[in-house]
């Protein structure tokens, strides 16, 4: 599990990522992704946030060598949010949404919670043990569907993953849903609410 990104580590991380260190970029991603996604919630009705996020994060990596620390916290997260919002607004405009709509949506994207510290529960051994125990309790097929989707790293559509497992698409997706619900229920019984603990 990664250490959470602290303000003190910002400059070191930025230097490493700027120098092309993909491991450092992965550590930054682990702490930044959820906050970037949260900052785009107001666009969710009109823009495919997942597509915007992936494109924005690749662009962050591409421009990172030219980013310099400005003394403010989270320079890369601020850059990622700016790139992602620009991509979202550009997408809206390309589909002929009124500019005022795009601007209103952008204003709705609140900054307040985004720059709160990243997840710091990674080091909590009780949380990690609970997650591992709950994963071990998953029935075979939901566990398999979840594992295959994770291992695929977003490379193939669900229909192809289902085909490889000899499942119909609906069956595959039902197993993914079941795995998520069972994990969430199992964790809830241990007093862990994912929405709170990992946010």
């Amino acid at each position, binding site marked *: *599990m*990664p250490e959470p990104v602290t303000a003190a580590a910002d400059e070191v991380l930025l230097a490493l990522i700027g120098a092309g260190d*993909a491991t450092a*970029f*992965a550590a930054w*991603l*682990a702490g930044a*992704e*959820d906050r970037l*996604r*949260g900052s785009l*919630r107001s666009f*969710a*009705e*009109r*823009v*495919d*946030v*997942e*597509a*915007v*996020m*992936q*494109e924005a*994060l*690749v662009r962050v*990596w591409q421009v990172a060598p030219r980013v310099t620390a400005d003394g403010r916290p989270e320079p890369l997260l601020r850059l990622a949010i700016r790139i992602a919002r620009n991509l979202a607004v550009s997408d809206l405009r390309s589909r002929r949404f009124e500019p005022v709509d795009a601007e209103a949506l952008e204003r709705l994207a609140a900054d307040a919670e985004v720059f709160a510290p990243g997840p710091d529960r*990674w080091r909590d051994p009780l*949380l990690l043990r609970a*997650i591992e125990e709950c*994963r071990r309790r998953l029935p075979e097929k939901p566990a398999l569907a*979840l594992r295959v*989707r*994770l291992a*695929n*790293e*977003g*490379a*193939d*559509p*669900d229909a192809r993953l289902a085909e490889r497992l000899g499942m119909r*698409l*609906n069956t595959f*997706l*039902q197993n*993914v*849903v079941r795995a*998520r619900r069972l*994990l*969430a229920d199992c964790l809830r019984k241990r007093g862990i609410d*994912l*929405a709170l603990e*990992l*946010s």
Partner: protein
Amino acid sequence: MTERERLIEEAAGAWRPRGAAGVRAHPAWADLDAAGRREAFEVARTQRRLEAALDAEGLSSTARAVLARIHGAQ
């Protein structure tokens, strides 16, 4: 599983088609109404948190997809 549930679950996954201009919207996302898109967003957020929690390096399938693209370009 209803058609709507299938679309939400597919849209909440990390796979996205890619073209010359970059990553494109999931076809299932395009077929959802506004409420379905909001739901897909929330499902994706929960799913990514779970994925990151289950991963030894704390990486979700979104992060893994981005890293795969970066490594592929290097």
